């Protein structure tokens, strides 16, 4: 199915969860937050939160900023 991850249209498995998506993109970051369609998905809910077609997902981490 098609979802949008960090602004990019992405094909993911039909049974993909937030946890699976984050694992692919973690890239060494341990302090990460995920928004699905604008709402926070708490870390504790990642494994039991399935993605749905058309979901807009943001995977966020710290960067330098004032």
């Amino acid at each position, binding site marked *: 199915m098609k979802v949008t991850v960090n602004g990019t249209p992405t094909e993911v498995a039909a049974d993909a969860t937030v946890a699976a998506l984050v694992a692919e993109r973690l890239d060494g970051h341990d302090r990460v937050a995920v928004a699905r369609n604008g709402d926070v998905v708490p870390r504790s809910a990642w494994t039991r939160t399935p993605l749905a077609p058309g979901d807009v997902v*943001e995977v966020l981490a710290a*960067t330098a900023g*004032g």
Partner: protein
Amino acid sequence: MATEDVRTAALAPALEQEEDADPLVLGGQTFRSRLLLGTGGVPSLDALEAAVRASGTQLVTVALRRVEASATGSMMQVLDRAGVRLLPNTAGCRTAREAVRTARLAREAFGTSWVKLEVIGDDRTLLPDAVELLDAAEQLVAEGFTVLAYTTDDPVLGRRLGDAGCAAVMPLGSPIGSGLGIRNPHNIALLRDAVSVPVVLDAGIGTASDAALAMELGCDAVLLASAVTRARHPERMALAMRQAVEAGRLASRAGRIPRRWHAEASTPFEGLPEL
């Protein structure tokens, strides 16, 4: 000379004790340092680490961005090593809705309910949008966040933010990154008087004298980023800012002399010989 040395030595411990009794209390937490440092614009992680250490800061701002953006994992390691507390910001948000969502995400990512609330209303000046800002502040306070609100130097808006339950009100001296210093010192002093929570001068600081002035005007702390991170020598400027904040705070507590139109002789005229 000998007498002077003895007096200086006797005075120093007393002042140190006095400084110990003058911590910054912010959101129920106590800080020795009254300098908050932003990480934006930092040229390298080494420069960041050196600047954080030289500044003596205990509270450092970070932003939240899409994960592929940069090698931020190591920035967090630098900040962890320095033992500073993180203050996530909502930089780039234009509406209360975006800012509230960003604060919730930051709480999830960093495990802190502290947030530097920024809601920007104009691209060129990056000035705060007062209406969206107050709305976001009220929502975040209701959700249990410790809100440090970046705002204009309007004393009335400052008071409203304090009344809304913000832990600190943070007026700008001049636009973000401009280095123009404090363009309206009178407003900063008025805002200080109007607000009962800590006031942190945020944005516009260009050099050490600007930071000292903020403290002399009665601000409780200074938050700056560009002035240090974009200085030719960030570590040196960080130390300058630390000393300026300390000097300004001491001067504020010491009580400056009134300004006069004419001279006021410091040497007595009595006993002046007729020559």
